[in-house]
């Protein structure tokens, strides 16, 4: 049987995109296509009936900054974001984006595409989640900014007729940033921790672990228990934080292998050791 090909819409500006999206809310939004085609090894990929191609829209390809934040269009390539520079991008974000793959892949992959994958949490997500990032969703006649956390929890992710248009990353002065990626097949993990220190006191601290699929491990209780603590942390502070994290993992990720659970605790433990006064 001859397969019917997809109908491709190629809007040239945001207005056109929103108008097409309105009449074709079911169409697949195609940015870099690197996730969409990643595991599709058919000679001619079978794609949905209607596709909206996002990469010819200038408004989605802009990068701007104010004193308070960096704003990135959803269709800006990851490589271009990296070119904004190590001095401007938060170090943990730079490491996360750089680790996605070679420049040839990063020339195609976009930040919007990275955050809009539904089935799993991709590399940028874990870091941006901790940075209080906001996402702009547009549809004809309306626009809303929502926190990344809420965006991911939304069901459906994007309402009919909506498109992610911009990502706003506040400049927060984290003076301690770690991003790690440990790839071991199903036991793989990503980890991000951010902190600010004021003299000998921990004034802000946040962390998350990501595992294959949609798992995200965070513990607000552990974070807030550590706030205001004197640095370096005492043995007691560290043991309590580790216990809190262990309980979180046991409670919500019982299915994790003991190898993975131990790994989470040991990575976290070494972060606590690294938190020393500036």
């Amino acid at each position, binding site marked *: 049987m001859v397969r019917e*090909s997809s109908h491709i819409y190629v809007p040239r500006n945001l207005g056109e995109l929103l108008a097409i999206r309105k009449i074709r809310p079911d169409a697949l939004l195609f940015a870099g296509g690197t996730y969409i*085609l990643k595991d599709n090894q058919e000679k001619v*990929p079978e794609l949905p009936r209607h596709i909206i191609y996002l990469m010819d829209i200038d408004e989605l390809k802009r990068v701007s900054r104010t004193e308070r934040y960096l704003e990135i269009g959803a269709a800006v390539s990851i490589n271009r974001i990296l070119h904004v520079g190590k001095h401007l991008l938060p170090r943990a974000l730079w490491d996360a984006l750089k680790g996605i793959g070679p420049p040839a892949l990063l020339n195609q992959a976009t930040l919007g595409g990275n955050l809009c994958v539904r089935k799993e949490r991709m590399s940028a997500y874990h870091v941006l989640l901790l940075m209080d990032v906001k996402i702009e969703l547009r549809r004809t006649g309306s626009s809303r900014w929502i926190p990344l956390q809420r965006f991911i929890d939304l069901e459906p992710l994007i309402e009919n007729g909506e498109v992610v248009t911009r990502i706003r990353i506040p400049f927060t002065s984290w003076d301690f940033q770690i991003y790690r990626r440990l790839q071991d097949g199903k036991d793989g993990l990503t980890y991000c921790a951010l902190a600010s220190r004021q003299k000998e006191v921990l004034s802000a601290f946040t962390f998350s672990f990501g595992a294959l699929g949609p798992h995200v491990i965070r513990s607000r209780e552990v974070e807030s228990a550590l706030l205001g603590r004197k640095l370096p942390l005492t043995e007691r502070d560290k043991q309590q934080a580790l216990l809190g994290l262990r309980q979180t993992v046991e409670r919500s990720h019982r299915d994790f292998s003991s190898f993975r659970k131990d790994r989470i605790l040991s990575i976290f433990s070494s972060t606590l050791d690294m938190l020393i006064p500036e």
Partner: protein
Amino acid sequence: MRISFHLNGRHVSINTIPERRLADILREDYGLVGTHPGCYKGTCGFCTVLMDGNPIYSCLLPAFAVREKTITTIEGFLPTREAQEILKGFQEAGCLLPEYVLASVLFPVNSLLETTDIPDEEDIEEIIRYCHWGPSRSMAFREGIIIAAKFRNRRKRRGKRK
């Protein structure tokens, strides 16, 4: 779907299924067989081409995304002095690149030399990490990149003096 684009300096137009991969179009419709798709999933790099001057994987690019873009394949790149400098660098280092790896080596090395005068260990490591050709782990391969950088710099300096 009719798709027009610039291919190795020529304006071309093709009627094709929009979802077809650029890698296949290049080989099957234009006979540009220096593009060697191997994995079709963005890992081997053997299908690398330049799109508007930047390396991309042509196996991950459907025809509809190529409209009005400028594509340079390894055949279009080889005659340039940039490509020749890199080849000469590898040759002097005693690292002979087989034909099927040219696109996956020359394009990333060229991108690196466009942005860096003297590639450091980290830059070279990155090229090697993503290169799926066994001998890229050899000393000769590293040397090849460093010598190519010297050729490139020498030419740039000469250009400035004129």
